[in-house]
């Protein structure tokens, strides 16, 4: 167990995980855009949920007020996070739970693995959780000889298919029913109860196959692992919101329950849940109320797990909190509405984001939690046309475009940031030297109308020699689009010649 608390000065973490080794976003997207099945699957899925969400949100007359309230509750909590974290430790401990602090993924994984080993168990059942995906818990447990079974339907599909999640809510969104049937048929037997003979791709049959496969795991498991959507500081209550009911099984049947929760998941009071239990389901699954809301406070004799451990995870969150513009990303309640409306996500797919957090939120979260040193993380802030659709739907009003631009500045220009609890001045990322020079030159020219005019005239006079396609870096435009024709004279020459058409020919 560790006693390091977020925010307290300590030795810099010696063992930050290696930067992720994924290709830069444009290269990954290059493949995905050409995958017709993937494009079809994503288009169908995101457009369906997009329309449903819009309807579910339109029903609520005070949506704007709820959105603002959610934003303010989160901002308030983040501003006083040190205080609320201590309160959570007190209330959870008083209710019979044990609180552990993990500064990074490695420490969190170690804590969980040790806790499981103490029980003597070699298997755990898991509730769908982003935090455990973020830290790579399943792989870490595997390395210790412990098998973790995902019980959420979509997570199960990803796990059986040895795949990576591509969506926050529906990690297997990139798969269609036929692909899922094939995975069930070939893989279920290796993990436990095989798929029924003659399984088809009917949704009801697929769900039933998963139910039967999972049931024996629920009944056998002695250890459950979860995350949480919220932790209520005043009582030390954890909240998991879900649709399938598998979570309820994992939270109630095992003897030991271990919950790994990011420190930003705290809300001060039960009253605050009123807001999020309205905005989360409607934004996420377009449900008015999600079918299962499980809440537990420590342990209770003869009811549910007899041992409860809460692992509070930092893993880059206090660094993110230190950044004035970027910290709003910590308001995220992981509803995935921003993914579902994002035109870039729809075409590039979730895997291109090189993280368990794909889509717009991933593009601002990963480069903050992990830093901008790797190729993928330095490319994520540019994985957006800044169309603003994500901001519009976000139930906690995270201005994702604002953070993207802020992170672009960090990548292109370097500057102050916080890494591992220390203030650092980042150097610009590689590959931006030419761009910087161009931007500087353009600024110089554009601050001087005479220079701009000279450039325009040059372009106009040489227009007969302009090619329709460009070599080198220009191909990024002309590979798929023609260049516009250049006019004979820029507007300003016409204006000066005719005084706005008042003199001479129009």
């Amino acid at each position, binding site marked *: 167990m560790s006693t390091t608390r977020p925010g307290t000065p300590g030795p810099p973490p010696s063992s930050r995980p290696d930067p992720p080794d994924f290709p830069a976003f444009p290269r990954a997207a290059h493949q995905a855009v050409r995958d017709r099945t993937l494009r079809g699957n994503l288009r169908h899925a995101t457009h369906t949920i997009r329309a449903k969400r819009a309807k579910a949100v339109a029903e609520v007359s005070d949506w704007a007020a709820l959105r603002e309230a959610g934003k303010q509750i989160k901002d308030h909590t983040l501003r006083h996070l040190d205080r609320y974290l201590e309160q959570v430790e007190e209330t959870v401990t008083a209710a019979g739970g044990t609180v552990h602090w993990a500064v990074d993924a490695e420490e969190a994984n170690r804590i969980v693995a040790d806790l499981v080993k103490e029980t003597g168990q070699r298997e755990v059942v898991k509730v769908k959780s982003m935090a455990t995906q973020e830290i790579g818990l399943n792989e870490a447990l595997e390395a210790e000889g412990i098998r973790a079974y995902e019980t959420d339907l979509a997570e199960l599909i990803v796990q059986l298919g040895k795949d990576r999640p591509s969506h926050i809510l529906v990690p297997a969104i990139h798969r269609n029913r036929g692909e899922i049937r094939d995975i069930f048929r070939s893989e279920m037997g290796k993990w436990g109860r095989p798929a029924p003979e003659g399984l088809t791709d009917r949704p009801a049959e697929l769900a039933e196959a998963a139910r039967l496969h999972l049931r024996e795991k629920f009944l056998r498991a002695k250890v459950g692992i979860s995350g949480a959507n919220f932790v209520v500081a005043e009582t030390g209550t954890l909240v998991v919101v879900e649709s399938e009911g598998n979570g309820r099984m994992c939270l109630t049947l095992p003897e030991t329950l271990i919950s790994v929760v990011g420190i930003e998941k705290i809300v001060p009071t039960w009253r605050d849940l009123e807001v999020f239990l309205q905005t989360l389901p409607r934004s996420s699954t377009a449900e008015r109320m999600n079918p299962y809301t499980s809440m537990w406070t420590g342990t209770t004799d003869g009811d549910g797990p007899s041992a409860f451990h809460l692992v509070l995870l930092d893993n880059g969150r206090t660094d993110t909190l230190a950044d004035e513009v970027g910290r709003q990303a910590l308001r995220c309640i992981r509803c995935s509405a921003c993914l579902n409306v994002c035109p870039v996500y729809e075409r590039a797919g979730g895997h291109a984001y090189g993280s368990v957090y794909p889509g717009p939120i991933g593009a601002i979260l990963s480069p903050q939690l992990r830093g901008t040193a790797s190729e993928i993380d330095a490319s994520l802030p540019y994985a957006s*046309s800044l169309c603003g*659709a994500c901001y519009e739907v976000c139930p906690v009003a995270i201005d994702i475009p604002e953070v993207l631009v802020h992170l672009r500045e960090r990548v292109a220009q370097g500057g102050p940031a916080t890494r591992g609890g220390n203030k650092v001045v980042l150097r610009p990322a590689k590959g931006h030297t030419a761009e910087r020079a161009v931007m500087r030159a353009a600024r110089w020219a554009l601050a001087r109308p005479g220079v701009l005019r000279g450039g325009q005239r040059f372009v106009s006079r040489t227009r007969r020699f302009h090619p329709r396609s460009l070599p080198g870096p220009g191909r990024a435009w002309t590979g798929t689009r023609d260049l516009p024709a250049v006019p004979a004279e820029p507007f300003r020459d016409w204006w000066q010649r005719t005084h706005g058409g008042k003199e001479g020919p129009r």
Partner: protein
Amino acid sequence: MRVALFLTCVNDTLYPDTGRAVVKLLTRLGVDVDFPTAQTCCGQAHYNTGYRHEAEPLARHFSDVFRDYEAIVTPSGSCAAMVRELYPRMGARARTEGRGDTLERVLAPVVPKTYELTEFLVDVLGVTDVGAYYPHRVTYHPTCHGLRALGLGDRPRRLLRAVKGLELVELPGAEECCGFGGTFSVKNPDVSAAMGADKVRNAESTGARVLCAGDNSCLMHLGGIMTRLGVGMRPVHIAEILASTEEAPSA
């Protein structure tokens, strides 16, 4: 009223017809419009690519050029959004960085009086029928910054519906981004082009011959895809449609 046209650097260089159309339209509506020739660029491309410090002198220059006019009109939703939404943010950032409130104060005067063209027509001049004539089937793409940052709503469509001879057809998936996104178009060319191609296909499906929008940079991207795909449509800026009359029609 002293009204200045802020044409934008892209329009000035590549789309002078749009500028002439704005002048013609506003003059017809009785507005005395000036084009201060010291104008250059609002700094949006710099800002959005992560070069905020390079954008600052351009914003100052913008304010120097335009601050004494009563209204600043621009035929670009995204440049209008830059001034209205991002100039105040730029000033506030400078202040939190300990650079005082100078930038904020310098930029403040131009923020509330900068209008996107359709906004100026509907809200300031109070007209929706501008006396235009344009006998074509047209579909309208609301560009993202006009739609979401400025909240132009149905102003452009109201203006288009009042144009004589014009048949306005709804664009499927209208509110989805066209994929231009400034430097996004060259940093992520595959996704950008895929978005653009979908937008063009949607536009084509309406049977319209003209795709209208209020931002020439989006139209440059879409027009480049149209000719590449061999689609029989052309992109036209809304100013050129609204400027067109029976006596002096634009193509």
